């Protein structure tokens, strides 16, 4: 898979790929996977060069799926083809899947217990905070990436329609072509 020009200096084994992503996955609280993956894969191990990694970030953002998982698929593919991608994703998700299922089992078993009310209040607080995390992620992305008037209009229209209950498929069918058109128009302006 790697071309001659970008062949990594060391050819990592599948089990090394698994180990790196297992460790990152286990500690991936609250996002930020992209910069972390870059540090592990580009800076510390030199498996991929920076230009290629940034290309992968673009792909992972434009494709469906969680960005962190997509980056893992991209890095795994570049290093070791389909098996590499599978190993990277399984490594990244192994610990989170275990933890989430344990927490879920606890949650569905907890309702019967007398401490259930405390647990419910704590969880409601985490949920309310997590909605804030969601909104803050959006606002930070907005502050960093959105400059032009047309793009601002796309943000507002997308957020409002999805927020007010329009099904996602309809939002995307309208907003993606609209945003492409606007990006193209604003590009020829500049």
């Amino acid at each position, binding site marked *: 898979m790697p*071309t001659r020009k970008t062949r990594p200096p060391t050819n990592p084994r599948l089990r090394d790929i698994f180990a790196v992503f297992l460790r990152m996955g286990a500690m991936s*609280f*609250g*996002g930020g996977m992209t910069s972390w993956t870059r540090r592990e894969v580009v800076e510390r191990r030199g498996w991929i060069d920076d230009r290629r990694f940034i290309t992968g970030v*673009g*792909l992972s953002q434009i*494709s*469906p*799926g*969680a*960005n962190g*998982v997509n980056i893992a*698929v*991209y890095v795994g593919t*570049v290093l070791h083809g*389909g098996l590499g*991608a599978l190993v990277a*994703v399984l490594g990244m*998700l192994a610990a*989170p*899947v275990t933890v*989430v299922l344990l*927490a*879920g089992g606890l949650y*569905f078993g907890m309702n019967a217990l007398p401490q259930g009310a405390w647990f419910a*209040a704590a*969880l*409601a*607080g*985490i*949920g*309310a*905070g*997590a*909605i*804030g*995390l*969601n*909104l*803050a*992620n*959006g606002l930070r*992305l*907005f502050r960093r*990436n*959105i400059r032009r008037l047309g793009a601002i209009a796309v943000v507002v229209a*997308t957020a*409002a*329609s*999805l*927020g*007010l209950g329009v*099904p*996602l498929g309809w939002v*995307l069918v309208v*907003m*993606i072509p609209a*945003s*492409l058109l606007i990006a*193209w128009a604003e590009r020829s302006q500049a």
Partner: protein
Amino acid sequence: MTGVLAQLAGLFVVLSLLSVGGGNGVLPDMQRAAVDQYHWLTARQFLDLFAISRATPGPGALIVLLIGFKAAGVIGALVAGISMFAPSCVIVHLAARYWDRAARSAWRELAERALAPVAVGLTLGSGIALIRGTEHDWPAYAVTAGSTLLLTLTELHPMIALAAGAAVLLAVGT
């Protein structure tokens, strides 16, 4: 049982393909389907599972494991997880082989630029939908507002904001 598994697979394969812009945009559709359409869980439980998926490591899309588990046990979790993750992963894997060649093409740059505002809008819109989809009382609104402000304006770690949210609602005794 088989019917539920087919519903889980059908729902999450579609949402996997629609999960552009990081994947937050699928939450409103997921909530509508799981709560209102299939009655796998209540609105309260959906928000609780959302909270669990955010307070634990890994992508937020892992909430589908818990929805699948509630709907159809361990097999349900497995079906939901594979349905949610496999389609998008296969797309990235296939695209990765050609993406380098498209690296300097004009349309790629345009597509990346056009998708950014859509992704921001989907993230904000899913937050709005989550607030509307649960019966919030004022302490919960206050926690959401506080955590939004803190996490937007400071470099506070998200987990601290979630823990603070739990502490506030425990103290208020909701």
